[in-house]
């Protein structure tokens, strides 16, 4: 039994018995999830006449129905199911009795409402279970008081309280009123893993019924009486800003009410890490309907001008940093030349173990390979959008956003209103992948609403979305290995860089497994904005490193899995260096599970296999990708995947996420690419930007989890990075040629054999 102080929770558990009136909290928003599915489920049980709020995460109806407020915004991880599962587990209720509602943005009640970086479940693992456990304890306390027996003798099972000695029992609903008046316990007991009844058992997506019947649930579905539609016009190229606008022709178009300009930041505002914005000065056009605004947008006459170089201080997760933004119009061709140039010069040495220079000097063989990848656009299926209604010094927002709290200081500053006057609903996001962590579009919607004095829904066209920036950066990495005359690995050297950031993680595998190791990095400033993208840096480095290790194993005459396991054995038994970011045993564990599940070495002769493994975002993932060549075209037949992310809360949903990450990675490795010419993105919609479709997706995906009792770590990112390497390695087996440049589709060699 785990006994935990509830001090983290106490601040969050603001009790508010005044909310205990029937349905006071329920049904005030179209985004509340008491939708068809829930109502059907409840058809066998009446809706409660009265609700009792036990803490901010849950309320219990007089008939035992439970409403759980799920704190984090959802964009497809299925956390609206798995987070309530954590609470329901410790509360000891029947999952069938649970209704899930989305909590609004409210940091005092719900803590850091951040969905991203594979942190959701990891950060909520204890607090949400404590919310459930403390409520259960209050219910037991209520029963103990009512029955005049010691609390220790009260047991609970599936929403029922029992006192065995006296034979008394009651449903949670019957004790909820008394429980809601009790103080939150100082400490609570959490269940042991072996006692879990809900965690670890697959539960269906609580929103699936609403999704398959087309219910309004996304930010872009938001409707409000009197709401206007707005669109923005941003500069056509990076390195440009607004000069002047003539909106008269656009304003004369049917259904158009106004053309305004907005400035996203107040002068002197200190930006946070997620205030990234290449185009802070915009033209906005406001009208009655989306189609009318889209048509009028074409009639805007805007003059743009080049930006001047500048530096800015960013106060983000890593503390204060200065960023240099150069003037000028950048092109992919120039980027490539610059990256080649820096890759050929000494970089900044970030880690050095042993004497790598001497090892290379004395090497019998040196294997050196360079890898590169282009910028990637997120291309979430739901383009950026936000609803905002500014009334005086207050604003009501409903927007798809991954980290609502981080846009609040910007909103407060730019609107000139107090932060506490910002109210935000958190509708479902139609994809995010890191892009919706950058909430500039929320600020834009609010500024437009303030200017036109009306409720406004800002809608980005696909073209606006794809050309707005915040891309996965373009990267380059060179790996070198020194081998002695017996093909023993003597040293490894990695030099990596990118625009505008280096992708290097110097302390990750294979650092720690080699006596002689060196890691260098470099970067090039740019005015093309970049940001989070399903493990940026990792998703490039995994592909490069794992392709290199594959080629290195082949050069050394070793089996690729055996080769990795040998290195990991060294890292576990006799690690080199103090700071190795990974657990070599868990890393080896996923490879061993994978080897068994994929029946490595026993594949059909016509199947070409590639293996890859990587650690990032606190979890370990490894893949074997099986490829065949059909009519001269590579076809991914199967991906076998092994993951160690600790305890898996909702296994089928976690599998779904891994399947998605694998498919997404194969798509980006094959096709993903955004290029630039004179600052202009060369693709702006799906007729030019190739996305993976069903035809190119794996025919089968087979996901396995390492079984352990370690607290859950990330799932959104970890299966994504290694698939790039697995694909490259399988392509080599199929075609006899290595792929060094992404996207592989444009680096596709003539087929051999």
């Amino acid at each position, binding site marked *: 039994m785990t006994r935990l102080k509830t001090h983290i929770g106490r601040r969050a558990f603001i009790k508010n018995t005044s909310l205990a009136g029937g349905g006071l909290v329920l049904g005030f928003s179209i985004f509340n999830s008491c939708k*068809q599915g829930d109502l059907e489920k409840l058809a066998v049980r009446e809706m409660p006449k009265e609700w009792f709020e036990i803490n901010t995460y849950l309320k219990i109806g007089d008939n035992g129905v439970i409403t759980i407020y799920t704190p984090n915004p*959802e*964009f*497809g991880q299925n956390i609206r199911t798995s987070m309530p599962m954590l609470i329901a587990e410790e509360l000891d209720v029947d999952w069938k009795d649970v209704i899930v509602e989305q909590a609004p943005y409210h940091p005092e009640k719900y803590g850091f409402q951040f969905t991203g970086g594979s942190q959701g479940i990891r950060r909520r693992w204890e607090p949400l279970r404590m919310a459930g456990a403390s409520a259960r304890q209050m219910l037991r306390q209520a029963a103990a008081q009512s029955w005049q027996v010691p609390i220790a003798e009260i047991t609970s099972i599936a929403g029922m309280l029992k006192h065995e000695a006296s034979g008394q029992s009651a449903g949670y609903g019957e004790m909820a009123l008394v429980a809601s008046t009790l103080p939150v316990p100082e400490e609570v007991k959490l269940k042991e893993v072996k006692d879990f009844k809900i965690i670890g058992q697959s539960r*269906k997506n609580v*929103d*699936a*019924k609403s*999704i*398959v*019947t*087309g*219910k*309004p*649930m*996304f930010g*872009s579905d938001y409707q409000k009486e009197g709401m206007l*539609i707005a669109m923005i016009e941003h500069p056509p190229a990076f390195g440009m800003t607004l000069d002047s606008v003539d909106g008269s022709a656009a304003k004369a178009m*049917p259904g158009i009410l106004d053309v305004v300009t907005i400035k996203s930041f107040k002068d002197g505002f200190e930006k946070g890490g997620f205030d990234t914005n290449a185009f802070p000065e915009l033209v906005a056009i406001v009208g009655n*309907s*989306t*189609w009318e605004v*889209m*048509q009028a947008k074409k009639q805007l006459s805007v003059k743009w001008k080049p930006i001047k170089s500048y530096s800015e201080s960013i106060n983000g997760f890593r503390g204060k940093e200065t960023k240099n933004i150069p003037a000028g119009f950048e092109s992919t061709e120039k980027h490539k030349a610059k990256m080649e140039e820096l890759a050929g010069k000494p970089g900044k040495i970030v880690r050095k173990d042993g004497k790598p220079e001497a090892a290379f000097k004395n090497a019998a063989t040196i294997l050196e390979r360079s890898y590169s990848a282009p910028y990637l656009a997120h*291309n*979430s*299926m*739901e*383009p950026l959008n936000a609803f905002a209604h500014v009334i005086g010094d207050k604003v009501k927002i409903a927007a798809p956003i991954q980290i609502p709290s981080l846009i609040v200081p910007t909103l407060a500053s730019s609107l000139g209103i107090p932060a506490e006057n910002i109210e935000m609903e958190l509708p*479902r*996001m*139609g*994809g995010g*992948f890191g892009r919706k962590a950058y909430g500039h579009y929320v600020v834009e919607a609010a500024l437009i609403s303030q200017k036109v004095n009306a409720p406004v829904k800002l*809608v980005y*066209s*696909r073209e606006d979305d794809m050309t707005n920036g915040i891309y996965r950066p373009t990267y380059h990495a060179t790996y070198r290995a020194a081998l002695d005359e017996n093909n023993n690995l003597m040293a490894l050297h990695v030099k990596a860089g990118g625009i505008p950031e280096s992708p290097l993680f110097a302390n990750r595998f294979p650092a720690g497994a080699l006596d002689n190791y060196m890691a260098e990095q470099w970067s090039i400033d740019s005015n093309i904005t970049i940001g989070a993208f399903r493990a940026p840096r990792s998703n490039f480095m995994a592909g490069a490193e794992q392709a290199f290790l594959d080629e290195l194993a082949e050069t050394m005459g070793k089996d690729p899995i055996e080769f990795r396991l040998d290195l990991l054995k060294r890292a576990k038994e006799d690690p080199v260096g103090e700071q190795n970011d990974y657990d070599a045993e868990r890393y080896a564990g996923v490879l061993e599970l994978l080897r068994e599940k994929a029946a490595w070495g026993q594949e059909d002769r016509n199947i070409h296999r590639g293996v890859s493994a990587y650690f990032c975002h606190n979890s370990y993932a490894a893949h074997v990708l099986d490829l065949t060549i059909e009519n001269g075209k590579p076809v991914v037949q199967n991906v076998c995947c092994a993951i160690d992310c600790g305890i898996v809360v909702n296994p*089928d*949903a976690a599998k*779904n*996420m891994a*399947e*998605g*990450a*694998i*498919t*997404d990675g194969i*798509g980006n490795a094959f096709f993903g690419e955004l290029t630039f010419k004179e600052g202009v993105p060369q693709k702006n*919609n*799906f*007729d030019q930007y190739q*996305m*993976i*479709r*069903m*035809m190119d*997706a*794996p*025919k*089968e995906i087979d996901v396995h989890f390492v079984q352990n009792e370690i607290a859950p770590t990330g799932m959104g990112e970890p299966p994504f990075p290694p698939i790039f390497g697995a694909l490259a390695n399988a392509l080599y087996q199929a075609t006899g040629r290595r792929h060094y440049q992404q996207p592989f589709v444009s680096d596709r060699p003539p087929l051999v054999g």
Partner: protein
Amino acid sequence: MATFNLKINGEQQMVDVDPSTPMLWVLRDHLKLVGTKYGCGIAQCGSCTIHLGGVAVRACMLTVSSVGNQEIRTIEGLSENGDHPVQKAWLEIDVPQCGYCQAGQIMSAAALLENNPNPSDNEIEMAMNGNICRCGTYTRIKKAIKTAAGSAS
């Protein structure tokens, strides 16, 4: 502006819009049927798939003036209680991640099975290739279509 009488999900609807307005925006902005999604506006992603006279079409490039008397069905009208075989299969396989593209996927799948109750893998891929799922749920979508085909036959 002009008046159009449309038959949508079995009901007669009247809208007063510019004749060039795509059905996508007539549905979303004027009739508040927001289950049909905007993804690209150029018939490349399939998020806005609806049925026109029983055939899957992209609502983003179907002007309201070209609809005439043909019946329109949207995700909201695919079944009365969300129990169309394709919807049921989607729930059984638990297909969605973010869910944004799924209405379009379901409408494409339902149209496919209407014409070809037992499609081969290749026929499923051909019919579904116009629908992008950025979350990458394709393996589940295919499985759900096979489940729906199996349950209907």
